[in-house]
């Protein structure tokens, strides 16, 4: 066990995966010599050589397109898109190619590929370093979508993603890289180094895709969250002084519907929270599923607390970010209803 930041945990996942399986290759913009702008791949090139960890031209399309070809060859590419905001040029390769290769070739060709990208805001990155595009992946059949909320999960889920025989989108909440940010931007953040929960096994372990984690048990209301919002949910719960059950979804697709259903049937109330824009965000899917499965148990409408339907602003970051105050208000509101 070693106390790791999320960056260190991700680096460690790469390391043990490359150690274990020489088919694992790692590349992306600034990923090789420098080790990534967030340093998630630092040291790998030195350790495993330039043909297993290398820099690329600045072409997200080229990164994913070549990775699809490599995966079809039999390698296991783990590539980085420098910020999730920059996945768009690669979308055709992701949605039309990686996601459908197994199906359209009736299993002749497969695409075991991991596409990592730092996601979310909270770092004053403005509209092109803050986006949360998860819903653009969950709508695409053939992809799996994962978002960890802490170092331990990050490593175990990333290793599971690398083992997975299909393409996995791995979204890393960049605001959590160094410490568990709960949305109180005016308070200092303590590093993961000071959190017990960030004791990470230095060896090889996986956390299965498709299994949610109950962050805290509760009986009044269920909060569905992932990534940074898991921590915001904890803060909001305290602030609202409510006995909430917080579920960290961890994998958005496949979704752990059973855990969700069980919880909402128990609490009878549900709030969904994410940073992405509201309309057609992943929260909509969660609402649709929950109302379908738990209709007769719901005592209040399911509320969505999300980013606004606008570009992510720079100076007004904290007016945009769905922080604990907004969430606490929604919790109390949902509790009061009916």
């Amino acid at each position, binding site marked *: 066990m070693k106390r790791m930041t999320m960056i260190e945990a991700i680096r460690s996942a790469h390391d043990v995966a490359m150690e274990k399986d020489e088919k694992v*290759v790692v590349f992306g913009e600034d990923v090789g010599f420098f080790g990534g702008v967030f340093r998630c791949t630092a040291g790998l090139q030195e350790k495993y050589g330039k*043909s*297993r960890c290398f820099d*690329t*031209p600045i*072409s997200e*399309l*080229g990164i994913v*397109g*070549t*990775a*699809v*070809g*490599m995966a*079809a*060859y*039999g*390698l296991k*590419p783990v590539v980085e898109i420098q910020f999730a905001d920059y996945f768009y*040029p690669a979308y*055709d*390769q992701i949605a*039309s*190619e990686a996601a459908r*290769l*197994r*199906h*359209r*070739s*009736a*299993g*002749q*060709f*497969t695409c075991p590929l991991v596409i990592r990208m730092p996601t979310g805001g909270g770092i004053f990155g403005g509209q092109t370093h803050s986006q949360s595009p998860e819903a653009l992946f969950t709508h695409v*059949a*053939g992809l*799996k979508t994962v978002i960890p909320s802490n170092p331990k999960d990050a490593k175990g889920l990333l290793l599971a993603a690398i083992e997975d*025989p*299909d393409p996995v989108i791995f979204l890393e909440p960049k605001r959590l890289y160094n410490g568990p940010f709960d949305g109180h931007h005016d308070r200092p953040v303590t590093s993961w180094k000071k959190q017990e929960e960030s004791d990470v096994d230095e060896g090889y372990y996986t956390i299965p895709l*498709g299994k949610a984690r109950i962050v805290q048990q509760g009986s009044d209301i269920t909060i569905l969250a992932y990534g940074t919002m898991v921590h915001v949910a904890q803060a909001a719960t305290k602030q609202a002084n409510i006995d909430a059950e917080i579920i960290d979804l961890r994998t958005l*697709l*496949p*979704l752990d*519907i059973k855990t969700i259903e069980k919880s909402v049937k128990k609490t009878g109330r549900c709030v969904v929270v994410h940073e992405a824009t509201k309309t057609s965000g992943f929260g909509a899917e969660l609402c649709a599923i929950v109302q379908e499965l738990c209709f007769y148990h719901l005592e209040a409408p399911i509320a969505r607390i999300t980013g606004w339907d606008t570009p992510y602003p720079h100076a007004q970051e904290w007016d945009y970010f769905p922080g604990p105050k907004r969430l606490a208000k929604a919790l109390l509101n949902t509790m009061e209803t009916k």
Partner: protein
Amino acid sequence: MSEPIKPLSLHVPEPGCRPGDEPDFSDFEIPKAGQTRMPEIDAEPQDMRDMAFSIIRVLNKRGEAVGPWAQYLDVDRLKQGLEHMMILRALDNRMMSAQRQGKTSFYLQSLGEEAVACASQMALQKGDMNFPTYRQAGLLIANDYPLEMMINQIYSNKEDPLKGRQLPVFYSAKEYGFFSISGNLGTQYSQAVGWAMASAISGDNKIASAWIGDGSTSESDFHAALVFASTYQAPVILNVVNNQWAISTFQGFASGNAPTFAARGHGFGIPSLLVDGNDYLAVYAVASWAAERARRGFGPCLIEHVTYRAGAHSSSDDPSAYRPAGEGAIWPLGDPIERLKNHLIALDAWSEERHEQKSAQVLDQVKQAQKASEAIGTLTSGAHASARNIFEDVYETMPPHLVKQRQEAGC
């Protein structure tokens, strides 16, 4: 300059002739067969820039193989090549009819450009991988892929290896070095480069051969492929099939102000060759040269195959709306089957009679396959792969939500 400035206007390219015009290729410059040089296999790209501007041709008007590129094939292989092209043409012919008869939803033929894929395939080895578009069926035929399997795919019948999922002619045949075809133009190009990089990373000797049409070179994947191929010196052949037309849009919209598509390679330091795509021997020679170069670690090559799409774009298209009907007939590079036939005749290894016999035999072979396939079923007759197949292979293991949906679908 101090002349007054005139208002600007938009330049919009226009092909030489449109329906109603007399077809005309007099602007089209073609060097004589045998004139274009052959560089050393490890020549530096900057020492062979001329190759992008002068068409490599082997077969002259009299059907003789001439010049530095005329050196590779014996008569048996030439006959084989001729047969491949004849099978392809016969298959196209039958399938275009089958489509009109409603046996399939869609078809897309190679008419007039059969040599490009058929000859290129002969230059590859087992283990190499083509990343084709929809117009490279010749790769499969030249690699002895069963005709019946092709037709099963076209008919989406129960034996369709792709289980009815894909549009007709969107084959996939891993064992035959033929990558799954995508409907999205261009995407295979960067994938081919990645596959080739993977071979290099793995210390193997396999090479990739990527295919794209003239029109599709405008897509982003073309650029990404050239960038990555150049940077990592990937062992890949980047084929551009310039058959003069996209759908209704002539190649001038894609080439713009450039003299050739081959010239696109220069900005990337990629050796680029221009070849007479209707000259089986030239295509084979150039493909072999490029394959050898790639396999020996000298990096990628770009090959522009100059040819003409003699038929409609697809079964959904009627070219008489946008180009003169007689254009194909006067296409200066002729017909690939005729030219190889004439070569064999010039070599005294073939005759008109034998050609007719072969035609009949080939047609029979295709008909047999078609019959066998029809006995299994067509799109509209007989069963196809069941609805259950929709849900399979989306992932290796079907996740719960898909299991549920499959149940909802009642299968």
